């Protein structure tokens, strides 16, 4: 074995090489955890049936339903049908496929159901040094614990179901060092938006990102997941953060984390994982965390982002830029602050965890959602919902005039009944402001939970620090 210093990514990669890559063939990479959901799995099960193949490792496969499931309580629990028949069929098909192939499914009424990227870490099944895949680009979320986690297509879902392996070329590495500390009112969401604004929506293409530095070490696990979640919005294959005491404290005692002596052995193993000093990355970027402001997007991809105190850039005659602003109904050069807001969405795999709900509730406590603003709060999982209710957060949202729902992808993807209307401005804690992402003609401004709550109170784009005490 070579003793050359290695990056964390290289260590995880090498530990999972069934067959290393050559000039002619990609590596055969072993997958430790395969998460499946209703939207990207049906065609893969069809392929298994066509070939007469079983799911090779049901013990490493876990299903849930999140994308096309409704979030209204009466639809989830009251027996009211899913409004869209094709979505209902998709859910039924996941149920029948999991039953037929022996895959565990956290189904519609399961207390552990939730958005696939929320429940993996929450259950402790997402662990450092694992390879994790799912037919969903936001699988990068799981890298927050030091896993190598990436999204795959449905053909590859079939490959993993059949063989527990993938054919993969080794990606390059990009270190993103965040110096200094985030200031009050500035969150992981603002930091990742600032990073995407700097490196661009294809700045990470072909690379696995490793977020490092003081500001990252100071983040809690929820914040780290927000960072890794949006790695794909920079085009990256995956995002990773080295495990540390924060990681171990988060994972210890979770139902599917190792227990007892196995836990001790696992932690000893995980401590070998962080990037060795002197290891080389293909690229490195440094960002001053203390200079990051609360951020908000103004355009139709996550790289079109400015500080809330800033202005929309001027045009420079770029037709694509002008098309984006025309779609958004915004003016080049204008301030983004005080832009009117119609909808506020708090949730998604980016910002649907307990600390996200807490920080938004902290702003909303004692306030009302502004007249004419529709605010939807959708916990990322049923367990997040339960924990939030145990500390009374739901009362704060409901008293403020927001809707409190069951978990799911909801308005992030707008394929489950929850959508933003044509031409409406939505301040959303989700991850994509693409044209039509939240509904046909919807205009999405991505921001942190703090900012979203502040915008809900004022009915306009607002710097959350204006509403924060002290």
């Amino acid at each position, binding site marked *: 074995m070579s003793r050359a210093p290695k990056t964390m990514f290289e260590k995880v990669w090498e530990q999972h090489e069934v067959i290393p890559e050559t000039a002619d063939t990609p590596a055969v990479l072993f997958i430790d955890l395969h998460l499946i959901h209703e939207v990207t799995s049906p065609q893969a099960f069809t392929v298994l049936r066509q070939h007469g193949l079983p799911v090779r490792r049901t013990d490493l496969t876990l299903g849930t339903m999140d994308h*096309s499931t409704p979030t209204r309580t009466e639809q989830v629990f009251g027996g009211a049908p899913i409004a869209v028949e094709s979505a209902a069929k998709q859910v039924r098909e996941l149920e029948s496929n999991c039953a037929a192939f022996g895959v565990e499914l956290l189904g519609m009424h399961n207390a552990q159901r939730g958005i696939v990227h929320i429940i993996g870490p929450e259950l402790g099944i997402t662990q450092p040094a694992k390879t994790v895949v799912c037919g969903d680009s936001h699988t990068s979320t799981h890298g927050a614990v030091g896993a190598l986690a990436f999204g795959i297509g449905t053909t590859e879902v079939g490959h993993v179901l059949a063989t527990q392996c993938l054919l993969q070329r080794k990606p390059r590495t990009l270190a993103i060092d965040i110096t200094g500390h985030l200031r009050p009112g500035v969150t992981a969401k603002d930091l990742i938006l600032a990073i995407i604004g700097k490196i661009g929506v294809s700045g990470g293409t072909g690379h696995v990102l490793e977020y490092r530095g003081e500001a990252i070490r100071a983040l809690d696990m929820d914040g780290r997941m927000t960072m890794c979640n949006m790695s794909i919005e920079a085009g990256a294959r995956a995002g990773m953060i080295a495990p540390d005491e924060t990681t171990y404290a988060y994972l210890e005692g979770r139902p599917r984390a190792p227990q007892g002596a196995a836990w001790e052995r696992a932690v000893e193993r995980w401590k070998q994982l962080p990037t060795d000093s002197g290891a080389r990355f293909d690229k490195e970027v440094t960002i001053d965390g203390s200079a990051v402001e609360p951020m908000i997007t103004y355009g139709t991809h996550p790289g079109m982002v400015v500080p809330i105190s800033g202005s929309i850039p001027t045009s420079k005659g770029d037709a694509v830029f002008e098309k984006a602003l025309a779609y958004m109904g915004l003016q080049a050069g204008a301030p983004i602050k005080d832009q009117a807001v119609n909808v506020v969405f708090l949730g998604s795999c980016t910002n649907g965890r307990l600390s996200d709900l807490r920080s938004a509730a902290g702003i909303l406590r004692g306030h009302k959602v502004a007249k004419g603003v529709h605010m939807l709060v959708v916990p990322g999982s049923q367990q997040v919902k339960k924990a939030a209710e145990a500390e009374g957060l739901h009362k704060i949202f409901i008293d403020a005039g927001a809707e409190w729902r069951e978990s799911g992808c909801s308005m992030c993807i707008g394929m489950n009944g929850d959508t933003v209307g044509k031409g409406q401005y939505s301040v959303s804690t989700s991850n994509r402001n693409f044209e039509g992402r939240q509904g046909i003609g919807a205009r999405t401004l991505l921001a942190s939970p703090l900012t979203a709550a502040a915008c809900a109170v004022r009915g306009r784009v607002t710097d959350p620090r204006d509403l924060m005490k002290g």
Partner: protein
Amino acid sequence: MEPIKTLRSRTVVLPNTNIDTDQIIPARFLTTTTRDGLGQHLFSEWRYDAQGALRPDFALNRPEAQGCQILVAGRNLGCGSSREHAPWALLDYGFRAVVSTEIADIFRNNSLKNGLLPIVVDEGTSRWLLEHPGAELTIDLESATLTLPTGDWVKFSIEAFSRYCLLNGVDELGFLLGRMSDIKAYEQRVQV
């Protein structure tokens, strides 16, 4: 999968940069359980107006674009969601290749696995292609070359194994299944 060796077709040009897979196939069409019939929804919001009528000014709707099998697009094509429905929709519509200076990782992988050729070209070639919609191109997979109607040609890079599979109609799942003894040995070795 049918082997692919060469493709000769005129181009349709969408000069937009960062065309995400939500544009290629919006999420509301993902509540399907098959791969078929997605072509009718390709670029739905750009192709149809609110009444469902074709927008005559959209590139795909122009008479000269009919039957074109090569889509030329601006930088960073296919970013965003991992939905394989994007290449399924492009293929079902009739495209056989997409050309850009940058193609997003997951979309490129998904395209290769379905026989949609993701061709990455240099800035100069891309500029020429964007300025010449309808140009008849020849894409030769064996030599990994793209030939312009001027007779000029450029090499493009394509991952060696994917090219082999496309040229020979090899199914990657079959290849992986053929490595089962290595997979079993790995599982024993690391006790996973």
